[in-house]
């Protein structure tokens, strides 16, 4: 906070000296705002409990499956010599790598598989041996030797591969040091990130003028007070429809277009933002009742301040026709 105060003081000093120059700064385009439509959690839904795979004796490939020798073209100097291509009926698992260290391959599922001392490392697309070491974020297809229960070949690439939906038979090859223990805090609903239609329905106070615009402002839109515009559908209700991925979580408030005209509670106190979580359903509704606006006053008539078009109040609609002062000087309004 002290740094911020110092920055504030510094900027004030700079401003004062810069003011006399009166130079117009070059415009800079607005920063890219975060999109509201971006599903928070669309690609990484909220935690789903996945049991640690326990080794089983399920094997799909015969232990005596013959290896098919294939000739491979020459490879880069220093690369491992080409070994025999594993038979196609061996158990495989495709996923994204976390690490490859000390004869273990770790996938983003959190599972670790042992490798033989010198597994065959090949490029996943060319099928040729490669000197590129397996690294985090790479995609890899592991082929297991049922006899040793170890990976004998690892086909790697930085390009995205279709990953295995589950460990399947590879479950038998997972190495894990401890028996699984339940973790109640992560038990939850399975969220797929599917598109869910969310209807925002806002009931406004009866003093809201017919032509007022109502907006939803969200933390996902950097609290832009005009992020989602709603349409009036009856005397008190405004509505808008948006799609969100299940698992999306956001906070929002209702405004009339600025932070000077934001919703307030029935007690006319500032209320915390509404929280919304998109569940794994087909459609949801976010309903809010606004009791007061922050810019309304008890002495304002129902239709809002300055809405009576008379010489007594000669600028009823700022910015529109009639707002230009031509003719006799108006009498000052008695009370501000």
């Amino acid at each position, binding site marked *: *906070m002290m740094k*911020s*105060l110092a920055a504030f003081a510094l900027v004030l000093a700079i401003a004062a000296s*810069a003011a006399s120059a*009166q130079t*117009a700064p070059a*415009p800079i*385009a607005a*920063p890219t*705002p975060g999109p509201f439509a971006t599903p*928070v959690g669309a690609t990484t839904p909220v*935690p789903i409990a*996945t*049991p*640690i795979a326990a080794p089983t004796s399920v094997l799909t490939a015969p232990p005596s499956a013959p290896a098919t020798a294939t000739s491979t073209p020459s490879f880069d100097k220093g690369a491992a010599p080409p070994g025999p291509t594993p038979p196609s009926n061996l158990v495989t698992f495709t996923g994204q790598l976390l*690490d490859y*260290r000390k004869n273990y391959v770790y996938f*983003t*599922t*959190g599972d*670790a598989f042992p490798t033989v001392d010198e597994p065959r490392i090949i490029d996943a697309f060319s099928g040729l041996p490669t000197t590129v070491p397996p*690294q*985090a*974020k790479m995609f890899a297809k592991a082929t297991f030797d049922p006899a040793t229960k170890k990976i004998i070949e690892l086909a790697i690439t930085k390009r995205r591969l279709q990953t295995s939906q589950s460990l399947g038979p590879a479950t038998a090859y997972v190495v894990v040091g*401890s028996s*699984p*223990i339940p973790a109640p805090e992560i038990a939850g609903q399975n969220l797929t990130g599917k598109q869910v239609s969310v209807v925002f329905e806002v009931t406004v106070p*009866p003093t809201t003028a*017919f*032509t007022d615009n109502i907006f939803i402002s969200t933390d*996902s839109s*950097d609290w*832009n007070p*005009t992020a989602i515009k709603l*349409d009036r559908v*009856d005397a008190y*209700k405004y509505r*808008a429809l948006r799609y969100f991925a299940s698992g999306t*979580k956001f906070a929002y408030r209702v405004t009339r277009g600025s*932070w000077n005209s934001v919703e307030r509670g029935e*007690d006319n*106190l*500032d209320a915390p*933002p509404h929280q919304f979580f998109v569940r794994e359903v087909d459609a949801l509704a976010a309903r809010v009742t606004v009791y007061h606006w922050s810019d309304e006053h*008890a*002495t304002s*008539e*129902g*239709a809002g301040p300055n809405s009576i*078009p008379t*010489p*007594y109040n*000669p600028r009823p609609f700022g910015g*529109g026709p009639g707002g230009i*002062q*031509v003719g006799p*000087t108006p*009498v000052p309004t*008695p*009370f501000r």
Partner: protein
Amino acid sequence: MRFFLLFLIVTSAALLAPTIAVAETTRSIELRAGVVDYYSNRYILTADGNVSARFSDGTVVRGDTFSMDLKLNRFLIAGNVHVDGAHIHEIGAAFASYPDLDRNYFVAEGDKPDRWTYYGLDFTDPHKGRLQPGDAFYFPDLSDQKPYIISNSATIFLKNNVEFPAGSRLLELGAYLPTPGYVVNYSSNPNFYQNAFAGAVLDIGVPFHGAADAISAGHIRYDQYRGWYTAFDQHFVYKQDYAVFSVDPLTQNQRQYNAILYHRESPALETRLFYQLSALSQGLNEPVGASTYTNFVMNSKVGRYAVGINADQYVDSLLAGAVDQFTPSGLRGNGHPFDVTLSVQSYEDEFRLFRYLGVPVKFQYRGGYGYNHDGYGIPVAGAGGTNIPADFNGSVYTTIFQTFLGFTAYTSSIKIAKQLSISAKADKLEQWYSLPHHTITTDVSETLARTPTSVKLPAFLLSYDVLNIGDFYGAQQRYAYPAYPDIITNQFGTFTGLGAFDGFATARTLSSSMVYTPTPYFALNLTVSYANVSPRPVPGFSGTAPYTFSADVRVRLSRNVLVDVTRSYYFNFANNLWSPQYGIQFSP
């Protein structure tokens, strides 16, 4: 005696027991790496190459790669991971943290690969084998996406903001431009966005410094009066409290120095202070003009009433020797007006009888007391209002008290046919002043709505509103409202009807609208209204356009870009056909 011994034993055991590590989560992460990328449209931060993440307790996790979903508040460090801290020195394949769950998940190397779970920052107990989220170690798919910010370090204040150092590059117009630092604020606390800036056509905020509870931001702004200019604001936020200090414009001689201080005293009481100093000065030289405005608001909940105090203090000129005359905005040169109003507003209530009749009618009422004072004389209506000091029929009023009462009654939307509903509302406000006059404002409206259950069908609205205002001076009516010339000729033509105006006016407005939103990607809103106003409007002087047609079209061009175009047609009122400006807004 037994109890005393038991007490001694328990107390001693408690004092001698080793300190149990508190499982708090990290509050911040200092991130360094070969490259740090921020993807603004996903709120995802990644880092690659010699990643080092230092937590607020001093624990350092190193690895090959890092990714964090800022909104979900979870991060992952993978590849050759080393965790080093006061109570931990471990090596593994990946370290994932879920601060909201108070859990850190570790894929340990050990003698045999294993999954460990740490509670918060308590690294003394690995909780081996405890189940972990199935996607704890997943990387986000960022293929085909360009980072918005590229840097080599960042400081993350969890659930709040990310500060990138000077030299970080920002993607603008397809090119990466160096910045003096940049702060991405992703807090769910909207109070970081409170400000006191005047309206501008364009405002580009450049937050350049941040902390867990503060943000400093520069602004580049444009409006039709000032042109291009800069502004600065400093935000401090703590829970529901906030303080904002700003200068706007910063680089022009006419500046406004603003401060907003909000404090939530309790769940039922809040206070807000706004102070604005307007000064005209060359740099930091002595101002040649200065005025202030202060507003203090206190709101409270008392039973089922909202009680508020609103006070305003104006100092129209802070400089000595100011000429006491009316400014173009109608302010006195030497005015120091002060006003305070105590208001009480009821919660929404219902006439139960009407519910039994099938027409639910709700109501609210309000009342209050006000005090106005200006030692230089309060502005008043009438011919003497233009004098200095202003007088009403020869009397200068330095203090005026007022009392007000208001009542609002309204029906719910009453279904009268399939998809068709009707509603009505009425509001009346009466104000009495110690300068002998009172005002009565009455507003009555009815709305007919056709609202299909499917959003793919258009909704129609028809509303009729009658607004009356009367300013009653009794025998002094014509003194307060001297007759205007009945014929006014200006550049827009010749108009009549103002001569009859004596403080009473009526506006009857018929409005109709159609809303068509067949998909979330397209919306059409058409509104047409007719206003019959007495006294009749005079273009360029008073009143509103009798006929207005407004159109609002919103089209989503892409997942991230929504274009909103609005414009109004005035049917040649004051020589205006279309509204002078298009309203165009790009938003996500």
